[in-house]
Structures are given as structure tokens and as C-alpha cells.
């Protein structure tokens, strides 16, 4: 089974840990990735605030490249990239005129036929069916599944999970033996793109997310978005400074947790790259 993969900027930069765990899982389950050649920026937070055509053309080019290369299914591990790609596909499907315009802009053919999967959908479809037989070390921890904002939104477009109380990650985690706690902060804002410009806001918001998870006795926060991870993990010292606390709860990618459960080493799934030490293995 061969998929296209769109890494976006984070998977080869700040989220190399995530990238490593996704590839490690794929290898363990005999799934193959083909990186979309000549891929470009998805537009991220900036493009859709500046120029609508640009914000659609950037993801559309990525999708058009996937089509050209015969990649029917693309996995997009970054939740932000995922959201941009899916929204673009949907907008252009709804509006044929706009689609033609974007084709002109790109000077490329674009049909919008590729199926875009986020990491949970990909796990659901290709990992879960063969998961049971591979589990060697059940992930026996209390976990707080943190979805953030982009994985399940806009819900009318994604039509994928309950936007206010999503469940899919909890289900995946319970399949590897974890105990997902009741966690009301699962879709609260982490500060998102203020990661760089306003760390004080990130510290305030992410601090609450971490506090509630610790308060409820979670051993780890599970995420599926590089942005969430960097705010909760990389900014931990800022958070602790802001709240005058000593939060130690680790932040683990869902793919890392599954990797550990099937016996992959913590190096293999990139745990060594975290800022907050992960004492889970």
C-alpha cells in the first residue's frame, strides 16, 4: 500500500519526532509513503488572512501535484496543513468557477480527486485493523487526549468527529491499552500561531490545558498536531514560569504511543527529541 505524504514545514523541522514516529509506524505495518514531489507551503495561518486566491492556490498546487503523480490517498500528519488542504478541496468542489480560476493561477490541471487523510483517519483505516496482533507492550497509562482546534474543524467540511467532544483519539488510545480520562480541555485553544510572537498568551492558555490534565491524574497528554505539541512541550519552561509551577506531564504524539505499544524503541519514535522528558517507554 503506497500513500502520498505531505510533510509541510513542521515535520522536517520542529516536529521531526512526529515525522519519525509516523514513518516508524508505516514501516512496522508495511505501508509505504511517497513524498509529494516539489511540494510547497500550505499557506498556514498567514495566507488566508492576506489573500484568498493565494490561500487556495497553495494547497491546490499540492493536491494537483499529488494527482499528477497518481497519489489517490495523501496523508497529512500536521493538523494545520490537513485543515488547509481539506478546506481548499471543499471550496473548489463547491465553486466550479473558482476552481477554474485556481487552475489558471496554477497553470496546472486540478480535479480535487485525491482523498486527504489526517493521522487519526490513517491510523483508523490502516493501522487499527492489524493492531491487536502487533501489541507487545500495552500502553497502560492514564492519558488526556488533546485534539486542539484544527483536527476536527470546520466540522461541516470534515464531517469526521464531534467538534466539541471528539472521540476518535480516545478510541485509538484505548485500543492500545491506555485509559483515556474525561478531559474537558480536549479542544481548548493552546495559543496556536502565537507560539512565536506572543509566548505569554501561549503560556496562559496552554498552562490551563496542562493543569487540568495533571489535576485529573493523567500520565501523558496525547496529541496529533505539531503546533499543539510545540506549545505544550517546547514552551513548557515558559508555561511553568508564567504560572509559577513545575508541570512535568509529557506530551506524546498518538503515533509515538502506538509505536511504543508495538515495541518500537523510544529513539525510533523520536521521544528523545522532546523538551519535557518522557519517562514512558
Amino acid at each position, binding site marked *: 500500500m503506497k500513500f502520498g505524504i505531505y510533510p509541510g514545514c513542521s515535520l522536517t523541522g520542529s516536529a521531526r519526532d512526529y515525522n519519525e514516529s509516523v514513518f516508524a509506524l508505516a514501516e512496522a505495518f508495511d505501508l509505504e509513503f511517497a513524498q509529494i514531489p516539489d511540494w510547497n507551503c500550505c499557506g498556514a495561518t498567514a495566507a488566508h488572512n492576506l489573500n484568498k486566491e493565494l490561500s487556495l492556490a497553495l494547497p491546490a498546487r499540492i493536491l494537483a501535484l499529488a494527482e499528477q503523480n497518481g497519489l489517490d490517498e495523501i496523508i497529512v500528519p500536521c493538523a494545520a496543513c490537513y485543515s488547509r488542504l481539506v478546506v481548499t478541496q471543499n471550496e473548489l468542489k463547491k465553486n466550479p468557477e473558482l476552481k477554474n480560476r485556481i487552475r489558471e493561477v496554477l497553470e496546472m490541471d486540478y480535479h480535487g480527486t485525491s482523498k486527504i487523510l489526517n493521522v487519526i483517519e490513517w491510523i483508523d483505516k490502516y493501522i487499527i485493523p492489524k493492531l491487536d496482533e502487533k501489541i507487545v507492550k500495552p500502553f497502560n497509562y492514564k492519558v488526556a487526549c488533546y485534539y486542539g482546534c484544527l483536527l476536527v474543524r470546520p466540522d*461541516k467540511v470534515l464531517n469526521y468527529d464531534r467538534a*466539541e*467532544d471528539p472521540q476518535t483519539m480516545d478510541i485509538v488510545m484505548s485500543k492500545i491499552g491506555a485509559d483515556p480520562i*474525561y478531559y*474537558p480541555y480536549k479542544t481548548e485553544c493552546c495559543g496556536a500561531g502565537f507560539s512565536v510572537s506572543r509566548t505569554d498568551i501561549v503560556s496562559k492558555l496552554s498552562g490551563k490545558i496542562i493543569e487540568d490534565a495533571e*489535576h485529573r491524574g493523567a500520565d501523558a497528554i496525547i496529541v496529533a498536531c505539531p503546533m499543539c505539541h510545540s506549545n505544550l512541550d517546547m514552551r513548557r519552561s515558559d508555561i511553568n514560569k508564567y504560572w509559577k509551577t513545575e508541570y512535568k506531564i509529557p506530551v506524546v504524539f498518538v503515533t509515538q504511543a502506538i509505536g511504543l505499544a508495538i515495541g518500537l524503541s523510544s529513539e525510533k519514535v523520536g521521544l528523545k527529541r522532546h523538551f519535557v522528558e518522557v519517562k514512558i517507554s
Partner: protein
Amino acid sequence: MARIGVFICHCGENISATVDCGKVAETIGKLKHVAYSTEYKYMCSDPGQTLIKEAIKEHKLTGVVVAACSPRMHEPTFRKACAEGGLNPFLCEMANLREHCSWVHEKNDLTTEKAIDIVRIQVEKVKLNSALQPIRVPVTKTAMVIGGGIAGIQSALDIANTGHKVIMIERSPSIGGHMSQLSETFPTLDCSQCILTPRMVEVAQHPNITLYTYAEVESVEGFIGNFKVKIRKKAKSLDEKTCTGCGLCTTKCPQKKIPNEFEQGMGMRPAIYIPFPQAVPNRPVIDREHCTYYIKGKCKICEIVCPTKAIRFDQPDEILELEIGAIVVATGFDIKHADFFPEYGYGKYKDIIDGLQFERLASASGPTTGAILRPSDGQVPKNIVFIACAGSRDPAKGIAYCSKICCMYTAKHAMLYKHKVHEGKAYVFYMDIRSGGKNYDEFVRRAIEEDHVNYIRGRVSTVFERDGKLIVKGVDTLLGAQPVEIVADMVVLATAGVANSGAEDLAQKLHVSYDAHKFFAEAHPKLKPIETNTAGIFLAGACQNPKDIPDSVSQASGAAVKVAGLFSQNELTREPLVAVVNRTAPPMYSTCVGCFMCQSVCPYQAIEREDFKNREGKIVKTVAKINEGLCQGCGTCVALCRSKSIDLYGYSNNQVYAEVVALLNEY
């Protein structure tokens, strides 16, 4: 030779703003057979109608086309005007320039071109119309009221008091509806049961009312004045005549753990039960789904203890066939179950309840005999949060409409709480306060100013539990969108009012329209709010949209007047737009070959067999014949008939063919 008169209406500016009415009138005036073509600002007004009447006489018109609004709006108006002008009313057709053209297109040549086409089609059609006489049908002067809530009760009593018979059917074991569950009513705070129960008793005792509880509509056939209704009387598993309603069986029933519907699940009831103490009729029924005898085949304790031997375990459902002249639908509403809003935590925490559950808590006859206690531990909540618009006015996640009653009952709830828990704090999160109505706004002000309920304008994003308390996170938009967090002991959700369960199914049985939310649809939003699109079927109460008690009662009385008006006539006239089997081509009379495939498509059993006999009395041919009393004019038989032997008045083969050909060709 046809002489058609065409009357183009401007509808004020509703049509003329985008359609060049002058050009339409001029172009149509040049068409063959059009003897007169004119335009006027308001055709439906008195001078407009006079214009038509005079033109009919002056120009010896043989047909009239009024190009105005939808025929669904004013066809009867203009047909009547034509009749008054001396023209058979069925020689009048309407061209829909407003809803189908001027309101949906921009002002340009294409729109005017379309308007001309719309009128042309009707000109071609009306040339082929036949002068028809209305069909007369008798009226059965018995009404059926479906639903025994306050709207049904009011309607039934009003009809019965005009001297006509009423059959009331109610699917639950007692009449009373949601009103019987309420504690106090706004804006007067009088006790709901105190004002309702006398009415319930009056229904039961009225000589003109026959009450069937635990009964549902099985099927409805026929038409205005002549409905044939089958109702299913579900087996109550006891003989109502023998039973005295002593209630001994209900106290001895060993199965006691069934969530009590009347208490909104906040209490339990046995398998044989009287829904509430003031129930009418005050006789128990056995809930066979939960009764130990029906599940396990053993028990029968109720039979043993019954002093009058009234229990009948083998009682079957009974189907009654009734002849009904008019139907009032008063099936009420339901509330949207709050679990569709996972972020509000309903269903996850016992202390998050909905509005109807709060009514039961506050009711003197409720599970706490009127004390406001937390369902989880029976403690008095010190802090209580009411969330208005939980699902209403929320097109993204809930429903787009305003449920209308929640602002008022939320104010009432907060007030009732404050009256009972003086030291407690009540918060209301609201979007707007909609308190139009007599003494309504004063009532809300009282809650705020006298009872010191904290009204916070803003939405709640989430409610979750932490350390045994409910954390309500919201926003106060009047304080510059400040996030607000309230630590509450109990949360009450004013969930949206939605169509009652089974409404869609009932609408389909009745052949009446319903809207996208499954509420029954009125024939016209302003001018026919009580009628449905099916003649002889009327609406009362919240089955149409969420309504409070005064509105429901007013509409119920309105529906009663409609029924009484209908019953004041001995005969009704019906539009003669029915199918007909041709009877030409002697000697075999009719080209029908008698395959009777039409019989199997007819939904009304309106197609009969007609034998032709020769002189010796031998049947030489059998052909189809339409019973015009039963035919409703759907025309499915017409399209199916291979030899084109059936046609439909008003939509004849010649007419529809002419419309297609005329539309697409040059003129």
C-alpha cells in the same frame, strides 16, 4: 373562437420592479386569440377585480389569465372574480410572475422574456380549459382531534360546545400533555394543574366528546367532509368498565424501576400505572414492554389483587373505523434531547437537567414535592445556572429557529428557584431576551430586579465537572467579551422545542405538508395559519411550531371555528379537477380496453368497473370508470393509460401538450 383576456399585475412593485409589465402586456396582446391584455398595480384589489369582471363582459372573453402571484395564493380570488363576471371560474388560470419570476431574478430582458413565456403557457392552456361545475359532496359532522394536550382539549371543547360530535384521540394513557407536567405558568405563576385539570375532566364528561386514550391514528383516507379514519386502540390490558381506578394494582406491581415519562425520567413507575394522580381517564394501563408477565410469562400479581377482576392479559389491540368530517391536529412538541450537545455534559452528569425536568422538580406533585434538590445527592443547589438557547438559534449545531417559549420559562425557572432557595444564586446565560407578550417583559424584569437573578448576556462554551462541581465557561458580551467561569451545583438547559416524535409519520398518513424541522406546515404563513394544504385538516398548538399556552389555546379555538364553519354546511363543493374515462367512439363506448392497470395505481380506489351489455344483456365490454367523489385528481392513471383513454380536467393531455409546444416555439 377563443377570446382570452390577460391581466398583468404589478403587485405594487413586487413584479414591476424586475419585470417590464408594459412590455409583457403589449407582447401578449399581440398573440392569436388574445382579445384583451392589460396591466394594473394591484389585480387582487377591488378595482383590479372589477377590471377583470368588466373586461369579461366588454370583450366577451372566453378565458382569463391573471399574471400575478402564485396560484397557491390567489387562484380562488380570481376564479371567484371571473364567476362574478359571468365566466365559468374554471376558465381562469394564473401565471405565476411573482414567486417564480420577479422575486427570483434580476431586472433585465431575460427576466421579462421569461415573464412573457410564463403568461404564454397559461394563455395556451386556458384556451383548452373546459367550463366545469363544482362537485357536491356531503359532510360528516363529526370532528376528530388528534392529541389531548391543552390545544387539543381547547379545540375539542369548543367544537363540542357548538353541538357537534368530537372524537379525541391521545396516544399516551392520559390527556393533559406537557401542560400537565408544568409547575407554574408564566407570567402569572398560577399552578398549571389547577387551571388544566378541570378542562381535562370536562372533556371526559362532555356528552359530545368521545375520548380514546392510548390510541393512535392508523390510516386516513378520503377527503374533506368525508374522511375514513382507522385508529388503533392499543390494548390497555384491562376492562375499563369494570376497573374502578382504585390503584391497588399499581402499588402491588413488583416491577417498579421503569423511568417515569411524566416525571421526565426523574422518578420511577411500575409496569401497571396511572401516569399521574389527576390523569384522565383515571385508569391504569399495563406497559407490556416492561411488564414481567409479558416478558417472562409469569407474575399476574395485578390480576390477583384486583378487587373487580378487571385485568385482561389477552386483550388485543382494537382497530376502530370512523367516519370523520374534519380533523384538528394538536399533537404538540417535544424538547430536543440535550445529549446532542456533548459540551454541555447532559447525560454525563446527573445535575445537568433540561427545562421540563426542572418543571417536575419545582412541581408540588413532582418527585421532590416541589423542593429544588440536586438529582445526584438530593442537596439544595447553592449556585444554579440556566442556559437559554441550548440548541435554538444555532444553525451551526442546533436548529436555526427561536423556540419562543424558553426566554419566558427560563425567567420563570430562575424566579421559582429564588422563591424556594432564598440564599441561592441564579445565573441565566442568554443571547437576547424575547419577551413579547402581555405582561411578559414585566415578568422578566421582575426576575432580574426583584428576585435578583443574574442575567449574563453571552453563550456558554462548555460545562464540565471538576472536583464535584460543575464548571460553566461562558462569555459576558456586555462586559467586553470577558470570559466568565461559574462554579455551579446544578445547570438547567433550555433546550430547543422540536417536532414531536412520530410527527413525520402522522403527516404522511394525513397527507399534509411539514417543514424541514418536521413541524406541520400551515397553508399560508400569514393568512391561513390554521389550515393545512389538505382541505378539512387544521392545526392547533405546538405541532406547528413551539408555542406558549395562550398562543396554543387561541389557535385551538381558531381551529374549532374552522371546523364549526365547515359543519354549518350540509354539502361542500369540491374542485372538479378529476380524471375521466372517455366515453366516445360508439358502439363500444370508450376506447378503454379494460386492462385495469389504472386500478392498481389509484391511491383512492376511485376506479371502478363499468360493464356494457348488448340487447340480450350479455356483457360485451368492461371499461374503467372514475368515481368522481373519490378521485382527487392526481392523474397517475392518466400518464399510465396506454390507449390515452383517461384524461384529467384541468391538466388534460391537450393542455399540457400545448403548454410544452407553445413554450418552446416562436410566437
